[in-house]
């Protein structure tokens, strides 16, 4: 029953969006104009109804729905029944559609844009919605009826039963799919030849919004990987991760380029190009993951027939967009104010660096496919490739970003260059000192210097701005974001270069020494929960005899589906994390692995800085 309501609503939202498309042409008259907007809102209403029906089917464990049967179980806690809605391919595609509609609706509230441009954007967004809606209905219908008569479901993959993973997909999706509106806006602007200041303003708001959400989504995902996978790391250059990183980098280039256009009214084509690129990268990512062409450790139900459909969608959308782009974009008049080195040239270098980085990640991700097709040999491209290619490519960008905001548009003079130079010298000596005290690693030195320098130089710029205007204004938001990057760089450098990993065997009541610290295993407990049984090791961590904290790593045995998951025990501390995992070795002997990850929490603190400054950028005047 509920599936029927869900499917009819899905169908009605498709119809509503068709009405949007049809009435667009005649919406000059007042009545039809009303129909146009009503259809848009009813489309949103129906897709929300459809989504809620699916959520309800999950909550009420309605196993006559095939998606619920495959991905849920009645013994699951309520939270994971709800989040299980988007923990699978079909449900997540419904979420995808809902976000597309919401973007369209919120965009229609825009009051500053010219009415034709606004309507044409809504038209294209509805068109995109219809394409994806057809994809969902034909290949991934979440409301299929289960032909088996069952009273229990197959269960949700236990590693997805986690609070961080409950909110990670929606946040990531809002960013990922929000770029569809940026694309619609770009095409509408091209066709009407209205790439003006208002267009830039609207695009900037959306681009910042999507980018902030994407940052949040990626940060949540990496945090989940950190504590749930039990591998001691937080980023593995897995295809799924790479594919979310690419629109993020392109989106970052877009946000930066929008500031050039803002100042110079130039480079419009470039901005439009990036707007199209962002959503294209989102779709190609979805295609590669959902089709099963790339195997990732993160599981997703894969199906080649879906892959072909998404590939067609990709070709149609991207192809159409780029054709419009080529046909409609004009030779831009006026010349760039390129100097060595002013803000314009710094931003151009930034864009070059980002696009190369983006391309490198894409290449590494699809290289195995190319090689297999060409030579029939199977290869894997692992972390060493990315670390040794992407990081050096990003270096000039990082070097530049500390001073770029302080550069001038018109001249090649850096205001108060002396102070920036002193800061750099001071910071390098300081980090040389730090790395010398620990162990000297070249990457440790470079990372520490860069991180500290970006933070120091950004603070210096904020201070200069404060002195010039006597107040701290919201216009410093880009500098806040740069400080965030500096913090992330410090976190990455310390947690990877200075990570300490150790393996031990331990018995109950035994104490072992790990450097300055000692660890005691008090007892092993077995806890029964409704859908799993957990084995928990109860450890105490001491520093020179003083109790710091207890740490409780464990292993969970899920009943449905039968799976074991590792639950890392983490003791967070501002300076470092103690990350512990436990494994049974022999009778009464337990193997433990401990990672000491210095400054790892900086990674997520820095991400928070970036998100906040992105949102400030959206709301500031």
């Amino acid at each position, binding site marked *: 029953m509920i599936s029927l309501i869900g499917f009819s609503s899905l169908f009605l939202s498709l119809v509503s969006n068709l009405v949007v498309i049809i009435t667009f042409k005649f919406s000059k008259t007042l009545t039809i104009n009303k129909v146009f907007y009503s259809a848009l809102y009813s489309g949103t209403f129906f897709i929300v109804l459809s989504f809620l029906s699916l959520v309800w089917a999950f909550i009420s464990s309605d196993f006559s729905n095939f998606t619920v049967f495959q991905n849920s179980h009645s013994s699951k806690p309520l939270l994971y029944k709800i989040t299980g809605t988007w923990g699978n391919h079909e449900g997540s595609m419904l979420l995808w559609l809902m976000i597309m509609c919401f973007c369209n609706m919120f965009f229609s509230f825009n009051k500053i844009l010219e009415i034709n441009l606004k309507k044409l954007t809504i038209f294209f967004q509805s068109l995109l919605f219809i394409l994806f809606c057809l994809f969902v209905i034909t290949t991934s219908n979440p409301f299929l009826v289960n032909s088996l008569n069952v009273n229990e479901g197959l269960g949700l*993959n236990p*590693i997805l039963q986690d609070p961080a993973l409950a909110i990670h997909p929606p946040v990531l999706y809002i960013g990922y799919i929000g770029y569809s509106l940026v694309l619609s806006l770009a095409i509408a602007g091209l066709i009407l030849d209205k790439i003006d200041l208002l267009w830039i303003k609207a695009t900037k708001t959306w681009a910042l919004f999507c980018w902030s959400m994407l940052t949040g989504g990626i940060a949540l995902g990496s945090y989940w990987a950190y504590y749930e996978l039990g591998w001691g790391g937080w980023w593995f250059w897995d295809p799924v991760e790479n594919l979310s990183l690419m629109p993020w980098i392109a989106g970052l280039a877009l946000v930066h380029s929008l500031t050039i256009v803002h100042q110079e009214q130039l480079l419009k084509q470039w901005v439009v190009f990036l707007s199209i690129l962002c959503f294209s990268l989102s779709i190609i990512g979805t295609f590669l993951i959902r089709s*099963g*062409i790339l*195997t990732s*450790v*993160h*599981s997703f139900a894969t199906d080649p027939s879906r892959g072909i459909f998404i590939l067609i969608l990709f070709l149609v959308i991207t192809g159409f967009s780029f054709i419009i782009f080529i046909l409609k974009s004009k030779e831009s008049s006026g010349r760039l104010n*390129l*100097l*060595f*080195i002013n803000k314009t*040239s710094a931003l*151009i*270098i930034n864009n*070059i*660096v980002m696009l*190369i980085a983006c391309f*490198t990640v894409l*290449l*590494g991700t699809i*290289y195995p496919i190319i090689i*297999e097709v060409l030579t029939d*040999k*199977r*290869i*894997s*491209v*692992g972390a*060493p*490739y990315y670390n*040794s*290619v992407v990081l*050096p*490519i990003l270096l*000039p960008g990082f070097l530049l970003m500390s001073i770029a905001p302080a550069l001038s548009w018109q001249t*090649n003079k850096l205001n108060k260059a002396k102070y920036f130079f002193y800061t750099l010298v001071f910071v390098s000596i300081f980090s040389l000192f730090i790395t010398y005290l620990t162990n000297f690693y070249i990457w440790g030195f470079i990372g520490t210097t860069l991180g500290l320098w970006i933070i120091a130089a950004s603070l210096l710029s904020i201070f200069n701005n404060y002195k010039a205007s006597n107040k701290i204004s919201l216009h410093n938001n880009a500098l806040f974001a740069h400080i965030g990057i500096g913090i992330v760089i410090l976190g990455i450098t310390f947690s990877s270069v200075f990570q300490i990993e150790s*393996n031990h*065997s331990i018995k109950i009541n035994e104490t072992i020494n790990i450097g300055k610290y000692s660890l005691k295993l008090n007892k092993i407990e077995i806890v029964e929960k409704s859908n799993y049984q957990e084995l928990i090791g109860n450890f105490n961590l001491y520093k020179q005899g003083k109790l710091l904290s207890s740490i409780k790593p464990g*292993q969970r045995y899920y009943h449905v*589906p039968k*799976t*074991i*998951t*590792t639950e890392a025990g983490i003791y967070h501390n501002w300076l470092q994390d103690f990350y512990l*995992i436990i*494994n049974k*070795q*022999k009778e009464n002997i337990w*193997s433990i*692995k401990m990672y000491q990850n210095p400054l790892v929490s900086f990674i997520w603190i820095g991400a928070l800085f970036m998100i906040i400054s992105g949102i400030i950028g959206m709301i500031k005047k």
Partner: protein
Amino acid sequence: MEVRFQRLLIILLSLILLAGSILLILFNSKKNLVFFYTPTELIRSDSETEDIVRVGGYVEKGSIINKGNNSYSFNITDNINTITIQYNGFLPDLFKEEQGTVIEGKLIERSKVKAFKVFAKHDENYMPASIQKQLKQTDYWNKKY
């Protein structure tokens, strides 16, 4: 500095960046690629000892030996040939006899690998698509894995 000279500098700098990146990619994609093999392919391949390889297959029944201190040895098989793996570290949660696994490590003898990493299937059907295809061709693909 003259404006034209400054522009030239910026363009040169960009080109250097571009060229540098391409060189980096070319250099590293040669060095950092790891080849994927089934046991039979590994034995027939022209890999030399000390090479880094990935091997995928099934853990042979009764071959897991726990040497204590997190040191293990086991065999990976494709039902034709068998490779012995030595591993020091934590075996993944889902690592079991007769289950699919992929290891990455250094070749120390023709059919012996010292593994750095052991991956087990992560969901119902985890096995790299390409290895799966290979195993299907040699009739050693069984849905129960």
